[in-house]
Every structure is written in C-alpha cells, then in structure tokens.
C-alpha cells in the first residue's frame, strides 16, 4: 500500500547539537535519518518504531527509519523529518523565481520496506 502524505522537514535541537558535534557523527546522522509519523498513521500502516520506509517525492526518493511522533505533535497525514541531507534529496531544483526550492510541505508517498537497500 502506498499513501500520500505531506512532509515537513524542520529543525530540531538534537539536529542542532549534532551540527556542533560534527555532521558525520552519530547524533547528527541518527537524527536526520529518522522520520516521525503520527501514531494513527503508524497503526494504519502497520509500522512500529525502527521499521523502514521508502519516501518518494516528485524529485527523488530516500529510505528512512520511522518513529512515533510525540503525542499530538503531528496530525494524521503529516510527516516530520529533521532537516538535512536526506530531506533535501526530495526537493526539486525549481524555485519559482524566489531562490528557495519548496523545502517544506510537499507531497510524498510512504511505502514500508523490509530492510534498507
């Protein structure tokens, strides 16, 4: 089953701490590769924390582990990922005359996968 969601990449304090520790370090890498999913969506997609999914936008695809978002933080249908290398792979090059690619609030499909390829 593939369903469409809205993805919000954004800052987190752990990601900020990771930048200072080093972008190749464990804190930063584990933070930017973890997708937060609303608990209803985790249940409806049969996911548990640590499972892997493939996210695909119009421009690219990535594979990430999932974790249940903090209570109430995300409404169903919205996904959150700390901003970084992986989230940027889903953005297109078009900026619509602004210099800024659409980096938040774009559509993605989410498909559970057994293991990362």
């Amino acid at each position, binding site marked *: 089953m593939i369903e469409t969601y*809205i993805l*919000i990449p*954004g*800052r*987190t*304090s752990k990601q*900020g*701490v990771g930048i*200072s*520790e*080093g*972008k*190749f370090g464990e804190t930063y890498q584990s933070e930017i590769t973890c997708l937060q999913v609303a608990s209803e969506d985790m249940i409806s997609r049969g996911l548990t924390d640590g499972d892997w999914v493939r996210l695909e936008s119009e*421009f*690219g695809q990535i594979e990430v582990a999932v974790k249940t978002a903090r209570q*109430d*933080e*995300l*409404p169903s249908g*919205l996904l*959150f990922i700390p*901003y*970084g*290398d992986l989230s*940027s*792979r889903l*953005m*297109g*090059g*078009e*900026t*619509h*005359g*602004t*210099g*800024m*690619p*659409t*980096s*938040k*609030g774009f559509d993605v499909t989410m498909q559970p996968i057994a293991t990362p390829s």
Partner: protein
Amino acid sequence: MATVTPDASSEHELKVITDATCTFCGCVCDDIDLTVDGDHIIKAKRACVLGKAWFLNHTADDRPSCLIQGQAASVEAGIERAAELLVSARYPLIYGLSDTTSESQRTAVGIADWVGANIDTTSSVCHGPTGMALQGVGEVTASLGEVRNRGDMIIFWGANPAESHPRHFTRYSLTPKGMFLPNGRKDRTCVVVDVRKTKSANAADIFIPVKPRSDFEALWALRALANDVELDANQVLHDTGIELSVWQDLMTRMKAAKFGAIFFGMGLTMTRGKHANAEALLALARDMNKHTRFICKPNRGHGNVTGADNVMAWRTGYPFGVNLMRGYPRFNPGEYTASDILARQEADAAMIIAADPMANFSQPARDHLKSIPYIAFDPKETPTTRAAEVAFTVATYGINVPGTVYRMDDVPISLRPALECHHPSDLEILKGIEKQVQKLNMKNAIAQSKNESLRPARDEFGSSE
C-alpha cells in the same frame, strides 16, 4: 564587557571569559561566561543546549589548514589556486557567508566585485523570500530589547524557537520581566500558529493548528478582520482548517494588546507561497498599527545571516542573489540565487564560505556543484569540504576569531574569542585571495593592452577595413 579572570575554585589556573558571544543561532546571546581549560571550553554558563554543544564540542580540527584535491598544501598555494579558479571562470559563484564575521562578508563581496562573480548567501534558502517581501511591503520593526520590555502579545508563526532558538523565550520574548511588564510571562499572551504541535506550541497560551499549505489564506483572513471586512465562515474554515471564530478571537486580542510582536520562521518562507506568505504577514503587522503598536520580525537561523543581508545591502544595494558580472550589481531572485544557478548548470567555478550546499541543496544543484571546481571554507569537515578542489580548514568565528555579527534584529554585536587556533581565519585567507585576484587582473589587463597595441589602429567609427 569581556573580562578574563582566573577561576579561583580550580586546582590549576582556568581562564574565565565573561560576556562572550554565542554565534550558533540568530539570538546571538552575548552574556555567556566561558571557562577555559587549556585549549578546551569546559563551561558555558547561561548557554542553551545548542550553545553548550557549540562551545563544549569545539576543537580545532586536526586536518591541514589547506587541502588541494584532497592533498595537504600550504595556505599560500591554496590562495593562489583559489584566485586562479575565480579569475579564469566565466561564471564564478560565491555562496554562503552566514556563519562568519561581517568583516569576512565584506571582503567576499569585494572579491565578487573584482572577479565579476555572482554572490549569494544562505539567506536565499532561509529568509530570502522575506527579503523579497520586505522590498514589497516594508517592515514594521523593533529591537528585541523593545519586545522584552514592552511586548504583551507575542505570536510565533511557522517558527519553533523552543528547538531552533532556545533562549528566544527566556531572553527576549516570553519570560523576562520587562520595564512595562513587571510580571514577565504572566503579563504576556503567547500564540503559536503552526501545522504541527511543536515544543513551542506547548509553551503557548493559544495554539492554532492551521491547515498545511494554507498560511497565505489564514493571513489574509486576519488582514480582512483587521480591516473590518466581513468573511464567509464556511469559506474560512475550508481554506484554513480553523473556525472563523478562532481568528476573530485572535484579532480581538491583537487589537487589545499594547505592543504586539510577530516572529515568523521558515514554516512560511519554505512552504508554497513563500514570499507571498511573508508579504501577507508583514502587511498584517502594518495593518495592526491602525489599532495598536505591532511589529514583525523573521527568526533568523545562523549566527550572522542577518549580517550577510546587511553587508550585501550596504555593499551592493541588495540583500542576496546579486550578480556583478556587468561591473554593476543586478538583483533577481530565481536568476542570481545559488540554488538556481547550480541547478541550471550555469556556474563553472564556485567559492563556498561557511555553508554546506552539498548536504542541503536540491539534487540537481548538488550534482552540478560536484562537477565544477570549487573552493570551500569551514572549521569542520562537511560533505561540501570533502568534494572541494581547494578546502580551507579555518578558525571558528566567535570562539577563535574576533569581529562583528548582527543579531536577528539587526543589532551589531562584537565577538569575544576565548581560544587561539592554529588554523587561519577565513578573513585572512579571503584577504589573501582578494590581493591575488587583483594581481592576476592587473596581469591580464597588461597582457590584453599589449595584444591590443599589436592590432591595426581602428578609426573612431570602429571600421579599419
């Protein structure tokens, strides 16, 4: 004022630097007391979790100060190679600049002018759309000090300072007791408008979970209410996901405030609508001034991204995305902004200063950057420094390097470095590149004039045949 005092409580001598400045985020807190043991900072009093990570993890990277094609080289050789790359390029791009001092930013703009480059800052991928909106509708502004002392209605829209600017609440906007707000937090109303219930929303009195991608519609609904325009309740609910009565209640509170402040983040500028969203919010702040005092400020991310806008503006007349190839500045977001230039495969060389486009640009932009020779400056190893033709490892601004940065409210603040560093500052290298570029330009001009003197004389109408 920074002072250096030995720490009496310790067995061996520790240095304490008071009122040091944290440059990790745009809050630029300049009240941090640093305790230094040898070449490590062991305490950063008053710093938040991000500031602590910034100071306490600081070590001078043990990579060489200069790598050319991954091989250790002298800084002088790096400067020469960098200048050659920039001068010989047909479309050089200079990009980054938000995590360095304004002195370095000024020198980088100078180099762009000398080589006829396109220069852009990380502003274009954070609050660049805000810069465009400012040109469209202007800005009703105030310093953070004014907000601290007067702001009784604080609205955060598409911003999550609890995670991105942790001391924003405690130092400037929410909890401090101000001159006209003796009870601090109790005297202020805090509203968060966002698509998700962030940590900041948990600190608010009112949280409005606006429908994703409908900020523009929500802001125009509020503008209508500010101007007493009647709205269709069903339409508002359909467009914003929120009942009209909620927006009416918010507007009543906004009108009743003595001093309102709206801080906004990339929830507005990175989402569909971008500059149109920022324009709607800035215009709303302007509308509110018919009723009471209201101001609006973007929450700026990097420590000196505000400086980058200021320096670019005072050197070229424009805040970001400036092309100097014709010998005079031209500004056109979408055309002269780094992400577009790279994605369209236009630049044939680049100089990236304190930014990491190889980690956060779109894939087509990254692919092109990887295919051209570029120079990178960073205190740490990043995906961008790894793929650079010339990579300079530089001292860290604020910790090793003095200078000036601009806080998010455009207030310039001096840096008080705590540690020496064996790497040069980016300013020293940029000055070296600027000198070398001038030398090469002179050499090229002489060679060109010699070539021209060998050509047959042209009459004044340009026809020698």
